[in-house]
């Protein structure tokens, strides 16, 4: 939308308030409700917001063990620069509009920690190489009959799943339990112009999966963060609670699988009629993603809890691997159909920040193209239960941070400022877990994780 048209749009839609939606490093939606007049007068820089929103952890503790150059010296303001293409009438509140924002400094320059800007930088680099990408996310979540307040009171344990606790998945009987909720969610998504390809019951307790239609990378991620807001809002209104935490209980976890396709001059890059004779570009793209996968795991599995999901035979990959249509691998290549040739990255947990997930995925591919990295052999066996000696993915937040720290290829694409910040925040999360009540020896989900992640990630 042209900034000159904003006033007319707000007038036409009888808007009184604008909800600004910025994205924190952890994928939380942060912002304000500002008057229409203030929204208009603050353009193009956008409303101010305390810079601490980019300098605090999920528990609200300020990061105070390092200082990034882009941070303000004495806690000042950043700005939420609205992306006017995302301005939409709020379907849940009268006279309100929602708009997604980038976090920028006082000069209007993107803050390196802004996940949305980070993805935009990666997409720009992809464009400079002559390629365009499309992406589609699969969002898994678990719905429980208790309200958030009740769930909190029972410490998020022994919650009543909406549906039979079988491990089947795709069970319409279970979908029926969730129908009133999902129908309300989809109605709201329709109003937000978010197109849903389908949804179904999944194998965890109260678990369902919503598949979004493919879109350009930024839009695909915008849709995920808005969808996750809608999931929580509708649950709250219906007296339920929902979580996208990677492993809220000892059953199947929540993933955030992302499919992406690549095209050049309108031609699908990943298409291979026989499913094996991949193009050189495809091989390099896969090679780059494979080479950076241990490091990317830090961004795909960002929390202490993420790694509890990464166990064999539970739908999550455990080794850096790829293959044609093999759901036990980290990268599932689907190359046979020209219109839908794509690669699915199955590593990300439901607690991951979609912008950073896609930034890591695309950055790996870009690194592969730039460095002409040949893909290793495809995995022709099950990726689960493999012995030592196979390229196992990092199994803890610190091991993933170590891999991230040692990687140079992602860093070339993502930038030093972002990477330095990201690594520090992950080591901080480790320190917080161990020194503020997390149990290092727990083999099951700890109370610390439930308190920190269940409702908000």
């Amino acid at each position, binding site marked *: 939308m042209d900034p000159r048209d904003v006033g007319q749009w707000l007038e036409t839609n009888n808007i009184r308030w604008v909800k600004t939606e910025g994205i924190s490093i952890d994928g939380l939606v942060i912002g304000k409700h500002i008057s229409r007049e203030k929204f208009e007068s603050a353009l193009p820089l956008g409303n101010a917001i305390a810079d601490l929103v980019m300098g605090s952890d999920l528990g609200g503790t300020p*990061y*105070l*063990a*390092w*200082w990034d150059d882009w*941070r303000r*010296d*004495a*806690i000042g303001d950043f700005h939420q620069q609205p992306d006017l293409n995302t301005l939409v009438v709020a379907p849940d509140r009268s006279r309100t509009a929602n708009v997604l924002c980038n976090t920028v400094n006082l000069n209007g320059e993107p803050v390196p920690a802004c996940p949305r800007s980070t993805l935009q930088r990666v997409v720009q680099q992809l464009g400079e190489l002559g390629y365009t990408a499309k992406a589609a996310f699969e969002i898994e979540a678990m719905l429980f009959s208790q309200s958030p307040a009740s769930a909190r009171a029972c410490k998020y344990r022994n919650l009543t799943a909406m549906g039979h606790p079988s491990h089947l998945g795709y069970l319409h009987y279970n979908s029926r339990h969730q129908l009133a909720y999902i129908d309300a969610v989809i109605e709201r998504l329709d109003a937000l112009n978010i197109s849903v390809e389908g949804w179904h019951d999944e194998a965890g307790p109260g678990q369902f999966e919503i598949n979004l239609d493919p879109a350009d990378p930024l839009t695909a991620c915008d849709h995920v963060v808005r969808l996750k807001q809608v999931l929580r809002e509708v649950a709250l209104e219906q007296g339920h609670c929902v979580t996208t935490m990677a492993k809220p209980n000892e059953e199947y976890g929540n993933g955030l699988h992302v499919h992406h396709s690549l095209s050049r001059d309108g031609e699908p890059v990943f298409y291979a009629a026989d499913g094996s004779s991949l193009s050189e570009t495809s091989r390099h793209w896969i090679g780059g993603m494979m080479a950076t996968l241990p490091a990317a795991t830090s961004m795909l599995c960002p929390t202490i809890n993420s790694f509890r999901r990464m166990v064999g035979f539970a739908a999550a990959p455990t080794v850096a691997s790829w293959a044609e249509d093999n759901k036990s691998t980290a990268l599932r290549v689907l190359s046979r159909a020209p219109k839908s040739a794509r690669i699915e990255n199955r590593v990300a947990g439901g607690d991951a920040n979609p912008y950073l997930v896609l930034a890591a995925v695309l950055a790996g591919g870009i690194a592969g193209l730039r460095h002409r990295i040949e893909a290793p052999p495809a995995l022709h066996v099950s990726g689960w239960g493999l012995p030592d000696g196979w390229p196992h993915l990092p199994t*803890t937040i*610190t*091991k993933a941070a170590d891999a991230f720290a040692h990687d140079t290829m992602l860093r070339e694409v993502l930038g030093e400022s972002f990477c330095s910040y990201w690594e520090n925040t992950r080591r901080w999360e480790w*320190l917080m877990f*161990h*020194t*503020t*009540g*997390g*149990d*290092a*020896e*727990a083999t099951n989900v700890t109370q610390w994780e439930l308190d920190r992640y269940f409702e908000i990630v």
Partner: protein
Amino acid sequence: MSVDRSGPLRIEVEDDPTPIVLILAATLRRSARQPKLAAAMAKAKGNVAMKSSVDPQAATIRFARGTITVVRGVASDAHVIIEADVNKMADENPPKPKVSGIAGHVRLALLASKVLEPPNAGWRNEATAFFAPTFANPKAPRGVSVTCLNDASTQTFGDPDTIEYEIHGTEHALLNVFCGNTVLGQDLLDGKIRAVGSLPHLAELTGRSIAVMLGA
């Protein structure tokens, strides 16, 4: 498993160590700088567990005649178990830890009590060691002045003409920070020390403080 050689001793930590494992290993390394303690540690055999009374943090130190290994948790074969309030261990008058297993392992318990509280070199020397690598960091203050409230004495570190950060505290508080017993930023929040300077400098010095605590 990472290994650190401190004289005749090998001090090892488990793979992917927890903070308390790193903290104990760092403490043992400090003790190993004292020849008498190093010699005693080199002869020791037995397992000592350290357990927090206020949260799940725990670790076991395995003394094996010259090789010391620190791992997470209270090992089932721990001979001596020390249970302490980890949040108050650095207080001037910390609550007495609960120690079990002394009866059968008096020497081991005595050794543990000594090596887990290594002697310090005085706040000035400890501060010198603390700041030694700090000034290579361009984000750190170029000069720091530290004032000990016990005798109102002040010492500067780094560039004395460009003091960009001041720390004020009792001798006990200063020693805690510079020895890595506590974290600068937390001590400031708790009012145990006072400081004059910017948040960026506080953050960088706190990062150094955490590194000292973890033996990084």
